[in-house]
C-alpha cells in the first residue's frame, strides 16, 4: 500500500477525505488485498472505540454510495474532477459519501470478526485470516455475501470492556510516560520539559 493510499484511507476514516481521495480508495479497493484488509482493521477498531450500533443497517450501502458518486459526476464535472474548485464546491456531498463508505466497511469488519468466531470484533488476526465478504468489496464484484450476514445482530464491544480499555490506557500512561519522556527530552526541541508531562516522576 502506498503512502498516499494510507493517507486517503486515514482521511476517509476521519471523515476528512475529499472526493479525490474517496475515488482513489474506491478504485483500488477491489484489486488491492492490503488496502482491503487495512480498511477492515481500521474500521473495526474505530467502531469499537466509538461504540456505534450498526446492527440494523443493510450491507448494500456501498452500491448506493457508488450510485451517488455516479449521479454526481456530470460530463462537464468529470473533466474538472481534479480541480480544486470542484473539491471546495461540494464538500458536503463528499463528506456524506465518505461517511456512508466508512459505515459500510465497519459492518464488514464486524461481521468478519463474527465469522472468525471471535467474541467481539477488533481481532485483527481473525480479520486478516478470513476471505473478504466485506460489503464494499462485494459490491465491486469481488466476492458474494450471504444474505443472512446483513440481518444478524452485530456484536458490539460491551460498555464494560470499553471502560476497561480506557482504564488500561490511563494506567499505561502512568507506567510508561517517564520512559517516553527520557527519549523525548533528548530528541525534541524543549529539553527537559517532557518530564513535566509525566504524571508522577519516579526516582
Amino acid at each position, binding site marked *: 500500500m502506498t503512502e498516499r493510499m494510507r493517507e486517503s484511507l486515514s482521511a476517509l476514516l476521519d471523515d476528512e477525505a475529499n472526493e479525490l481521495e474517496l475515488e482513489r480508495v474506491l478504485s483500488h479497493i477491489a484489486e488491492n488485498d492490503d488496502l482491503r484488509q487495512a480498511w477492515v482493521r*481500521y474500521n473495526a477498531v474505530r467502531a469499537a472505540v466509538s461504540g456505534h450500533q450498526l446492527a440494523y443497517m443493510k450491507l448494500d450501502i456501498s452500491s448506493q454510495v457508488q450510485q451517488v458518486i455516479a449521479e454526481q459526476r456530470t460530463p462537464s464535472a468529470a473533466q474538472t474532477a481534479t480541480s480544486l474548485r470542484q473539491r471546495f464546491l461540494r464538500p458536503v456531498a463528499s463528506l456524506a459519501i465518505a461517511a456512508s463508505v466508512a459505515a459500510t466497511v465497519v459492518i464488514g469488519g464486524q461481521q468478519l470478526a463474527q465469522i472468525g468466531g471471535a467474541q*467481539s470484533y477488533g481481532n*485483527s488476526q481473525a480479520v486478516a485470516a478470513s476471505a473478504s465478504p466485506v460489503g464494499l468489496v462485494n459490491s465491486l464484484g469481488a466476492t458474494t455475501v450471504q444474505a443472512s450476514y446483513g440481518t444478524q445482530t452485530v456484536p458490539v464491544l460491551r460498555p464494560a470492556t470499553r471502560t476497561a*480499555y480506557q482504564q488500561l490506557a490511563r494506567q499505561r*500512561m502512568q507506567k*510508561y510516560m517517564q520512559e517516553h519522556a527520557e527519549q523525548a527530552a533528548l530528541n525534541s526541541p524543549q529539553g527537559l520539559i517532557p518530564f513535566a508531562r509525566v504524571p508522577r516522576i519516579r526516582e
Partner: protein
Amino acid sequence: MLQNLLGHRCLHVLLATMSVAMVGVASAAVCPGADATALSWLDKMSRSVRQVSYNGVVTLQRGDDMQVMQISHSVGEGTISERLTELTGQGAQVERADHPVACIHPGHKLLRVGADLQVGRCGIAQHYRFSVTDGERVAGRKAVRIRIEPRDMYRFGYVMELDRETALLLQAETVGRGSKTLEKFQFANLSYSGQILGGIEVNLVHEAQHPHPRTAATSAAPGDAWSVGWVPGGFASTDTPVGSSGRRTYTDGLAVFSVFLEQLGREIRPGEGVVRRGSTLSYTRGMHLAGRPVLITVIGEVPVNTARMVADSVDWTR
C-alpha cells in the same frame, strides 16, 4: 575567562549557521515550498542549547492545568548540565549532568537540514510547512515566530517563538486539528546569566537517563523479537532498538512517540482505549499476534490516528 571562551564559540557557530542559511536560500527550488529562512532558524534553535547558558521560570499549560517549573541550563567546557525543578504539583527535580556537547541525538539532527537542502534531501521540510513572521515579546525578549504546519495528518502543528538573538525556544504551542491549542509552554522570565535561584523545596530528585549504545543488547529469545512495520514518513528511531526489549521510540525532530509491547499470559478480549492529556496520547490496544495475546501501547505527542496505524503494524520479527 570562561565567559570569553563561550562568547568566542557562540560567534564561531553563529557564523557557520549564517553561511548554512545562505546556501539554503540558493537551493530552495530543489525542495518545493521549503522556507529557507525558517529552516535556518530551526537549525539555529537546535544548536542554541549547546551554546548558551540560561535559567528561568517556565509554564506548561495543558487544558485547564498549568504547571510552573524552573529551568537551568549551563554549558561548560564540552559538557552541558541541565535541571528542571517543579515549583507546583509533585515538586520533583530532574537533572542531567555533563551531557557531552558533541553528543547529538537523532531528533536534533533532523532539525538541521540546512546543508542537505541543496542536494535535494528535504528532510523535515517534506513533512511540515514552515513560515516566519515577527514574534511577540516573550519573557522580556524579542522573538521571531515560526509557524509549523504538518503536510499530512500524522502529526500536530506548532507555533514557536525563538529568541531573536540566541534562537532559544521561548514559547511553543502544539496545535491539533481545528487549530485547537493542545499544549503551550513558555518562559515567564529568562536570564542568560548562570545564577540559579535557591530556596526551593525539592521532594524528589531524578537523574535523567542517557542511552548507552549497544551495551544493553540482551539476546532475545527466538520468536520474542518484534518490530514496528510502519511509521509516518520522516520518523526515525531515537536509539538502537534492542531485540525483545519492550520499547521502540521514534522522532521526526518535533514530535516523539514510543511503542510498548507486553506479552500477556492469558487471553484478552480484543479492543482499544485512548486517553489524552494535553498533546500527549496514550493508546492501548489488545490483540493477537500470530495467536499470542499482546497489549500494545503507543504513547506520544501524535494524533490518535497515527498511534492506531502504528499499533496496527506491529508484528513479530520472523
